[in-house]
């Protein structure tokens, strides 16, 4: 007790250096294959730029959770490159209440990405465990799970969020996140379950069982890691979808009562209120930022699917 056990392969406390190196080699190969297709490479670069913005916002921007209005100069000003724009507008212009659009969009990217990745990653985590359990054990739990996912698939997400938010009587971020989470894990549970059904019949699982591994160990160590490829693809595609849902929810008024919340949907509403026909950039620019992110994430997801699906790898 208390001693460090070193096994024959040099693994310390279950950390297997050789397996780790092998896995890293595999990831490097995947990255190389991914970068071979130009659309996927472009998608990856754009996603990395957005992530860099999130990190920059988190650590180097003061007051990164509120837009700063300027009540001395409330009319929107066009960016200097816009027809009729002046240099006073700066690169991205200003929107209603004198909010600097560039600054606000920078902060909005952080908020949007943080909340959407919370929903997607937690959904994936929960879904993976439930999916592998259902697929491996089968039986009544599996049956119940499949029917439950059928139900969630048939609900339009926006209607569900609206109805659930009403039932709870709250429209803040935590509630919205939890409701979306309830709607998001079934996708992953289904994906992982389908993979588990085929993986659990493979020889190495049988070998592990013959060696006396417990069910829990087989599920976590042998089955789950081999079901993750489609999950990564789905995570990538879902990031765009959930970001859009957040923007949409803010757009129809789920902004937690915070009118100066830097969020892309909220920015579009603010621009809309300021009469978008006279000041079109206040609506166009936040939407473009959202569109570029979604396109990039979709490109990356499609690229990942091509790389991770062995049948498509030629």
């Amino acid at each position, binding site marked *: 007790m208390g001693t460090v056990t070193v096994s024959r392969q040099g693994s310390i406390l279950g950390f297997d250096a050789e397996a780790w190196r092998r896995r890293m080699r595999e990831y490097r190969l995947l990255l190389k294959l991914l970068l071979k297709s130009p659309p996927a490479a472009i998608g990856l670069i754009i996603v990395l730029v957005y992530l860099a913005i999130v990190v920059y916002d988190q650590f180097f921007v003061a007051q990164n959770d509120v837009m700063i209005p300027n009540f001395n100069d409330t009319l929107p000003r066009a960016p200097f490159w816009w027809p009729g724009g002046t240099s006073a507008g700066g690169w991205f212009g200003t929107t209603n209440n004198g909010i600097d659009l560039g600054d606000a969009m920078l902060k909005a990217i952080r908020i949007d990405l943080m909340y959407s990745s919370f929903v997607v990653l937690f959904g994936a985590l929960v879904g993976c465990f439930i999916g592998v359990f259902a697929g491996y054990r089968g039986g009544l739990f599996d049956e119940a799970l499949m029917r439950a996912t059928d139900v969630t698939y048939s609900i339009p997400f926006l209607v569900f969020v609206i*109805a659930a938010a009403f039932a709870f009587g709250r429209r803040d971020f935590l509630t919205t996140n939890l409701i979306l989470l309830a709607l998001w894990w079934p996708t992953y549970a289904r994906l992982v379950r389908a993979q588990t059904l085929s993986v659990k019949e493979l020889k190495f699982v049988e070998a592990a069982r013959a060696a006396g591994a417990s069910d829990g160990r087989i599920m976590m160590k042998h089955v789950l890691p081999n079901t993750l490829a489609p999950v990564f693809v789905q995570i990538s595609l879902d990031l765009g979808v959930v970001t859009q849902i957040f923007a949409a929810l803010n*757009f*129809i008024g789920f902004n937690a009562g915070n009118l100066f919340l830097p969020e892309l949907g909220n920015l579009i509403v603010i621009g809309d209120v300021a009469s978008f026909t006279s000041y079109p950039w206040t*609506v166009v620019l936040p939407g473009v930022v959202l569109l570029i992110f979604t396109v990039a994430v979709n490109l990356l997801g499609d690229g990942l699917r091509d790389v991770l699906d062995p049948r498509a790898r030629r």
Partner: protein
Amino acid sequence: MPVTQAITVFFPQTIELAITSTVLATLIGIPTGTISALRKDKLPDHLTRIFALVGYSIPFFWLGLLLQIMAISLFPQWEITGGYSLTGIDPHQESWAFIFVGDSPVLFSQPTHFLVVDAAIHGSWSVFVDALKHLVLPTLTLTIGVLGVILRMVRSGMVDSMNQDYVKTAWSKGLPDWVVTRVHIRRNALLPAVTVIGLLFAGLLGGVVLVEDVFAWKGIGYWATQAVLRFDPGGVMGTTLIFAIFLVLINLIADILYAYLDPRISL
């Protein structure tokens, strides 16, 4: 207003949008997807794929606003934005209204609550044109979003079935091009597309909430949003129930179509 009555007034507006945009998207999507698959990796294919990618990435509500900006600044004479110009009373709110045709007020009842159909029944040409004009932008918004998914499904389905043995057999028998593409390739590619079009209604109904909000289109989605923001439990329950019933019906129809398209499947 009792919930049942509200549903009879609001729901037809939503159905109107959903039907027009799905029909339009299917009519454009299937031929375009076919061309895209037949000219794989050529210019038409690349253009279609870029369009599809942007189409399903674009946020509905933003696209709606964008189209409004474009319509107002580029084609102001068309008058396709804004409220209905002919009726003093909003025809969506009341089951009947007086409208002014020329100078004389005319009683305008709404037997179906589809404004386009009602105008046709009454034979009032000006109301009919006005209703059609206001359908253009919301329909276009939904169509562009739905079209992306349909294009992808049709294209990938056709590329898959083009590599099948029975297609090679059909070519080598010397059948004409259009027979092979229509009967052998496309018929099989349509199966997944039909399922997707059915499932799209789920997404479409979600999207309808936003599009109705942007265009102030007094449909069930608009009503649902207003019900939540005003804490109206009857409204929320009514809309949720209607959405659920509608979805189940659509899925049933998709299943029946499936059996019709593929004789191997029996219900």
